């Protein structure tokens, strides 16, 4: 509830408050030098000036941050002012809409991810070149790691002369090629996915042609 002030209640310092406000506003109707000279020895005026700073800053904040009816700036002419004057409910609505959109996008991504069925190893074409390459790459990788584990530890020698295999390892390299069942399923799935993509890309190319 706002209480209105009676004129009689106003203190005698109101003219000092006005001078202080004129000083803050840099109003030409006030002699600034004379006012500052008074300030040096009049601590009451100094105190009034510091009180007026509060009112002045509040009014300036009101002017800066809120829309005021006397501002007739078209919204399209001053984007900064328009953004500053935006009603809080608009900002809230925008935030909510953005959040809902983001959640929707996430849900869609999860849905799309789940839609891709895991591909069984058996369903892959036996003569797939890509899969064969993967099997070879995997076998090389396995051999590398096994040779590292089984080596004598002379890494400098290995680096210079190449790895030395035991008889078993050598047999593995030369006579016992890896089969598809030795390849982990995650690698097969990754290959299958990339295969699908490349097929899609080829299809697109055909369509474009």
């Amino acid at each position: 509830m706002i209480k209105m002030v009676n004129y009689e209640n106003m203190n005698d310092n109101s003219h000092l408050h006005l001078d202080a406000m004129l000083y803050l506003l840099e109003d030409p109707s006030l002699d600034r030098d004379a006012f500052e000279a008074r300030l040096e020895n009049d601590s009451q005026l100094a105190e009034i000036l510091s009180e007026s700073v509060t009112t002045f800053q509040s009014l300036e904040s009101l002017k800066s941050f809120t829309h005021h009816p006397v501002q007739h700036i078209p919204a399209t002419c001053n984007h900064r002012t328009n953004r500053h004057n935006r009603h809080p409910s608009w900002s809230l609505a925008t935030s909510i809409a953005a959040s809902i959109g983001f959640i929707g996008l996430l849900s869609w991504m999860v849905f799309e991810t789940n839609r891709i069925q895991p591909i069984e190893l058996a369903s892959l074409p036996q003569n797939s070149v890509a899969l064969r390459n993967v099997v070879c790459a995997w076998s090389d990788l396995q051999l590398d790691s096994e040779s590292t584990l089984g080596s004598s530890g002379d890494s400098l020698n290995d680096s210079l002369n190449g790895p030395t295999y035991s008889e078993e390892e050598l047999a593995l390299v030369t006579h016992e090629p890896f089969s598809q069942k030795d390849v982990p399923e995650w690698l097969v799935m990754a290959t299958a996915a990339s295969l699908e993509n490349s097929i899609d890309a080829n299809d697109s190319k055909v369509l474009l042609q």
Partner: protein
Amino acid sequence: MPAVPDRPLDPSTVEECHLAFSKMLEKYAWALVRDRALAADVVQTSFLALSRFGGDVAPEARKSWLFRVVYREALRVRNRSKPYSQSHTELADTVLEATADYEISPLSRMVEQEKLESLRKFINDLPQDQKQVLEMRFFENKTFAEIADLMQTPLGTALSRMRLALERLRTATKEKED
């Protein structure tokens, strides 16, 4: 010129004075230098002076002593930096800087919004002639001479309306704070 001998004031009294007057003094310093950081420096220097030389200042005179020191220090700082010739537009920017809270929490933002809403209500409740003067001076940046001309009143009347408007706003704001 011989150095002034120290007349130290005990730290607890300096702390008491700081609690009681520092905010008021910062606003005062800001009015003189129009820069928040400079104003804070001025006040800090003044309290340093109080701790070194305030020992023989009578307790009832400490406040006015501090105001005087702040005044001199502010003018010294102001003259040392750039000449004080800010336009009104620049002034508005420094006001924003002065009122800016560098770590604005949502709560303090709400409090600030609430204060501004109250101020808007107080302005709306002003008598029409006072409200008109206040709006033209603050929001339309008109001089009092222009306002008097527009309202077809003497300059003194326009100033008087502004004075009354400010008095009402100040009282209403104080009552709300109490």
